[in-house]
């Protein structure tokens, strides 16, 4: 079974990669399996300077999912380039860096810093983090801002740029078009949905930040719908994500039009989620009548 899939800057041996923020910088999960098994790795977000993030509690379990409000805690792009990314050199899998910021200038600064790293193959532009006060989702919910930051980052980057879209918008196609017009090489979709959970005993939101990003199987139908809509409207490579637990879920994203898939929350439940999905994928593709990953992409669209 041919599992390969090709996206700008990324020739993947299989379409499965861990999603940003759900895999750190790979070290911890390398204790559980050989990271070379992965199609690619999207590492945790980098900002211009180190960030502490939000107060705790930062996570809460929900029905078929979880809320998180980490708040982009990271040691800053320079430390990530120097201290985190080199570890992944020994693995035969491309690394996608996730770029975040509060201002267009910060996004550009992080992007330029990453130009000096030889350890990455692409960047994912995070304009959809719902858990920070400034920047983040602001850029991901206003088409004009999204266009501007994408354009500037694309101008600054030596690497292909995948823009990670927020689902917290009324029209995902408008957003996808805006960043595509600005030069995005691909899309990464979807980020989390803003949610809240209230503790009945304490009469207050469980998460200290009050709101958090909802992820996990609860959001999968929304992600599938959005990938489907964007695929119908645009011819741009898509890394699909949102609640993938099984190889069947991964196939569903391929049918909706994703060229590759990312696995997030499932890593927390099962550290072996990614390799298990990769192992199961050939059987599942065959079961549903496909000879390869490429063949399945977009096949869920009726009337072409």
């Amino acid at each position, binding site marked *: 079974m041919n599992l390969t899939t090709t996206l700008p800057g990324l020739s993947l041996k299989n379409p499965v990669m861990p999603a940003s923020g*759900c895999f*750190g910088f790979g070290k911890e999960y390398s204790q*559980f399996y050989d990271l070379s098994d992965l199609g690619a790795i999207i590492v945790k977000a980098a900002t211009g300077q180190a960030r502490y993030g939000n107060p705790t*509690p930062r996570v809460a379990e929900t029905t*078929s999912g979880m809320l998180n409000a980490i708040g982009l805690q990271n040691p800053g792009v320079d430390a990530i380039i120097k201290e985190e990314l080199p570890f992944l050199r020994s693995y035969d899998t491309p690394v996608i860096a996730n770029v975040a910021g509060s201002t267009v200038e910060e996004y550009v600064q992080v992007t330029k810093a990453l130009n000096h790293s030889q350890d990455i193959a692409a960047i994912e532009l995070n304009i959809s983090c719902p858990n920070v006060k400034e920047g983040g989702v602001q850029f991901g919910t206003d088409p004009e801002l999204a266009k501007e930051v994408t354009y500037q980052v694309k101008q600054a980057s030596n690497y292909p740029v995948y823009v990670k879209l927020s689902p917290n918008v009324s029209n995902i196609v408008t957003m996808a078009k805006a960043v595509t017009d600005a030069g995005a090489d691909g899309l990464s979709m979807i980020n989390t949905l803003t949610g809240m959970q209230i503790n009945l005993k304490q009469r207050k939101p469980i998460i200290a930040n009050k709101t958090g990003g909802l992820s996990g199987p609860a959001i999968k139908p929304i992600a599938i719908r959005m990938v489907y809509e964007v695929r119908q409207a645009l011819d741009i490579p898509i890394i699909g994500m949102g609640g993938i637990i099984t190889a069947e879920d991964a196939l569903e994203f391929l049918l909706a039009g994703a060229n590759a898939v990312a696995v997030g929350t499932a890593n927390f439940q099962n*550290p072996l989620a990614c390799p298990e999905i990769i192992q199961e994928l050939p059987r599942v593709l065959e079961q549903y009548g496909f000879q390869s990953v490429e063949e399945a992409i977009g096949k869920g669209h009726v009337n072409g």
Partner: protein
Amino acid sequence: MITKQLIEIKSHLRIAEDTFEVVLQSTLARELKPGQFVHVALKNHMLRRPVSVANVDAEAETFTIVFKIFGEGTKSLSRYQAGDHLDVILPCGSYYPVEELELDHALIVGGGIGVPPLYYLAKSLKEKGVKVTTVLGFQSKAHVFYEEKFQLLGDTYIATNDGTYGKKGFVTDIISELSPTIDYYFSCGPTPMLQAVTNQLAEQKGYISLEERMGCGVGTCYACVVPLKEDPTQSKKICKDGPVFYANEVILT
């Protein structure tokens, strides 16, 4: 080496109000050190639950966890039975450095569900020849567990919030009365108790163990961080750098 294992429940007992003791069979039991936890997956739950290790029987290749029902996850865990299997990640987190420390007398201070990891610690200290004095606090008589087990290891004192058993009040009241001469103290329990204990014993060397809502449990997601006293803009991860910390290392909030 941290591993995901499917392991069998050998016994599952209610030992106090809403409190359960579960013995699990695992080839990795002997790897578990005092203070470490295991990360347990539960049917129909997205997130695993961290549960501290209360005892290890290296010969029988079993270990014990003790937990109290707090929410849906622990409620679900209370419904498992002997013979069922649990998907567990182990061993997780840091441990009390029993082997490295030089000490003659240890004070153990536990509150409620912070008591279980201290039993394995106290047992390990006793085996090393350390004198162990234990002070435990519970909500009320119905919640008291492991008193006899601790008594076998050394002098043991109990406080209950409502006075239905032992001394009415807090562990700190007992510590004031005892004012024992110790080399180290080791504490685990609710944050207000840890704050009180670390303040009271500020002049002593000690270790504390923390708990927090966790995501991954292995150090990737940054959900369970705690700020450092030395520089509050820096943090450590409770699941990976902890749950055991030097008493004056972190800010308790």
